[in-house]
């Protein structure tokens, strides 16, 4: 297939050439290449004028790529996203497809550049669920649990009138990641939709039992529980995450010890945390020190571990800069919030609703408000 001179006619070409009928496998390779070329060279402005057809092309690309099992070639979708977005804060339908391909290709870092943009505008709520769910999975793969938790939190607390399967799966992972990160699962915040609050727990019972078992703090109990439910976790593709929850239990117990003791023998640590030998305890403590999760020194001669306070003194230049940049960021966010607030207060729907509910005053008290709003 030959290309026309690119700029003025990109829109017309998309329709005819790429949506017509199934493509045979020998043509497939060529098809992929041409689509990728097209995406890379088309003009963003034109695309934004007729987004639907472009989206269809991208979807076609995704299907083909998945069928041919070469998800990495779908990386071109990243450029497609940038061209389709009106602003970097907008969520398009292609976002979730792109992330899906990243996950299938197991190249999580490619997805990061897109994920790191804040999303504030959403066209289709359904896109949101998929996008944040996949985003959560990518961050879990990168072991950035805190951001993963934020993504999954967005899925679970998004406004929804009917329960959807994405939210259920997201909640399961949410429970597991909360356990790894904080050792407990927070209750639903007030703004969660009532549908979610009522129904999510019914569909995720084994995970809730898991968190109850975790709370007891006994490694052997947790291990036994996981063993007895291994098929359920396996069928949800969560077994890897569950195993990470199990190993995090040791960490949590050791961290609790740092709160109470200044020095403790490796034997006592092993006993308190239900490890078999002091050597294993030493290994765990060493790993935690290296990961920066606790501050301690191991004295191998005595078999003693001394725990220290966090050495951060908040006195360095870097810390001052960090604090300063955080403040700037928050001020910008605050300003944005205020502008949105002003927008809403001027919104006609809002004002008419408020006007209706206001107590009726005498006309003389108030003449600045038009009758229309009383």
């Amino acid at each position: 297939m030959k290309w026309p001179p690119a700029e003025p006619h990109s829109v017309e070409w998309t329709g005819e050439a790429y949506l017509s009928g199934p493509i045979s496998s020998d043509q497939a390779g060529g098809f992929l290449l041409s689509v990728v070329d097209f995406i890379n060279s088309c003009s963003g402005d034109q695309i934004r004028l007729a987004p639907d057809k472009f989206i269809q092309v991208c979807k076609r690309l995704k299907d083909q790529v998945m069928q041919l099992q070469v998800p990495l070639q779908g990386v071109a979708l990243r450029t497609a996203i940038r061209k389709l977005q009106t602003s970097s804060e907008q969520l398009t339908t292609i976002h979730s497809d792109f992330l899906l391909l990243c996950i299938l290709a197991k190249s999580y870092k490619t997805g990061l550049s897109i994920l790191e943009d804040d999303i504030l505008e959403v066209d289709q709520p359904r896109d949101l669920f998929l996008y944040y769910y996949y985003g959560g999975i990518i961050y879990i793969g990168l072991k950035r649990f805190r951001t993963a938790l934020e993504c999954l939190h967005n899925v679970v607390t998004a406004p929804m009138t009917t329960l959807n399967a994405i939210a259920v799966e997201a909640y399961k992972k949410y429970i597991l990641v909360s356990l790894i990160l904080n050792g407990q699962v927070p209750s639903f915040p007030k703004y969660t939709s009532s549908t979610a609050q009522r129904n999510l727990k019914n569909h995720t019972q084994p995970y809730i039992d898991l968190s109850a078992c975790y709370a007891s703090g006994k490694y052997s109990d947790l291990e036994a529980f996981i063993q007895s439910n291994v098929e359920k976790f396996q069928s949800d593709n969560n077994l890897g995450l569950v195993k990470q929850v199990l190993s995090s239990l040791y960490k949590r117990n050791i961290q609790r010890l740092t709160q109470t003791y200044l020095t403790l023998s490796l034997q006592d640590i092993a006993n308190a945390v239900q490890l078999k030998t002091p050597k294993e305890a030493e290994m765990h403590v060493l790993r935690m020190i290296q990961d920066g999760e606790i501050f301690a020194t191991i004295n191998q001669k005595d078999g003693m571990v001394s725990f220290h306070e966090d050495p951060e003194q908040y006195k360095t230049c870097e810390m001052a800069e960090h604090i300063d940049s955080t403040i700037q960021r928050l001020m910008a966010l605050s300003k944005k919030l205020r502008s949105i607030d002003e927008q809403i207060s001027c919104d006609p729907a809002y004002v008419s609703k408020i006007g209706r509910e206001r107590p009726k005053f005498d006309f003389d008290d108030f003449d600045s408000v038009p009758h229309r709003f009383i």
Partner: protein
Amino acid sequence: MDGEDESLGAVMVDDPAFPNGSVDSDAARATVVGGGDQMDVEAYAALYTGRTRVARLLFIAERCGSEAVQLEALRMAYDEIRKGEDSHLHREVSAKIAGRLGPQYVLDQAWADSVDRRAEQRKEKLENELNGYRTNLIKESIRMGYNDFGDFYYAHGQLGDAFKSYVRTRDYCTTSKHIIQMCLNVILVSIELGQFMHVSNYVSKAEQTPDSLDAVTIAKLRCAAGLANLEAKKYKLAARKFIETGPELGNNYTEVIAPQDVAVYGGLCALASFDRTELKKKVIDNINFRNFLELVPEVRELINDFYASRYASCLEYLENLKPNLLLDIHLHDHVNTLYTEIRHKAIIQYTLPFISVNLHTMAGAFKTSVTGLEKELEVLITNNQIQARIDSHNKILYARHADQRNATFQRALQTGTEFEREIRAMLLRANLIKHESNLKSARKL
């Protein structure tokens, strides 16, 4: 002297030859009444009158571990019941004795029958009288009629009916005196029934009467309120009520509580729940309460020891008192909680003035092992009741003062991140909702 087990010493409990079929004891519930202070059942029972004496004796018989004490208690209960008119209790006690006290203490069917017959007759008489009064519509007589009914049922052990009758007098009470009488009766029955909600209600009702009450009644009401709080595990309130009881109580409320009990309950609850200043002001310096404490010098001593930080002797007194307290019908299931509370307070108070404490000396002061002490300290530190850290290697406890400056920075940064996260999520959600509402209004059009 060895053979003569008059002393009812500790040996009895361990002796396998003793039949324990008749002693109904869960391993957990039965307490060993052994060791130095053996309970003097007679002296104890002499403190009370009325149904509570029987109830307490039966409780002791059930809970104590030694047969001799049990038989003593049952014997006294039997005698007491014979003086009254409750045939059910009589049957119960006779069954419990099961002939072990000889031919004099068996089920006396003839007596029981005559009591029942008399009861029937009296009931009929009362009913007729009451009906007569009701037709005549004389308030005072109706009230007295119901009151008599209440007394009758109470004497015969039909507590539910007694309660109902007493409550019915309420509609016919005209003076404050009547109301007080009614309240006190209801309180009495409710305590025996174990319905302490009613006790609290009627105490407040009685206290709200417009006429001022005499000192004895006030004292009685305070005790009842204290008991209700104790049952509800509100130890601080219970302590306050017991401490405010005036010495006018004397022996006027022995159908419910003895003044020794006021001292014990009040003292222990106060020790477990008051802080140091309150303890000093309300208990040690309280002249009224001192009168009660004189009756139970051990409690007085142990409170003073606690305040003066002589923990070893304080805990020793407590241990000595424990067996007897476990036999008290109101206190028994609170003893363990109260004791743990007191022990924790002692430990916290001990560590408060020091920067570092040697665990060996501390273990000696509390008469426990170093490992046991470490475990206790661990629990207290985890619950944030002691600000300290344990140096397990050298067995020293170091006080730890949180660095305010660092903590402030940390909290500020954390708040910043949380704020950012929350606001972003909120803007997203707001956007979604706006989108939905746009869709809805678009559909409407």
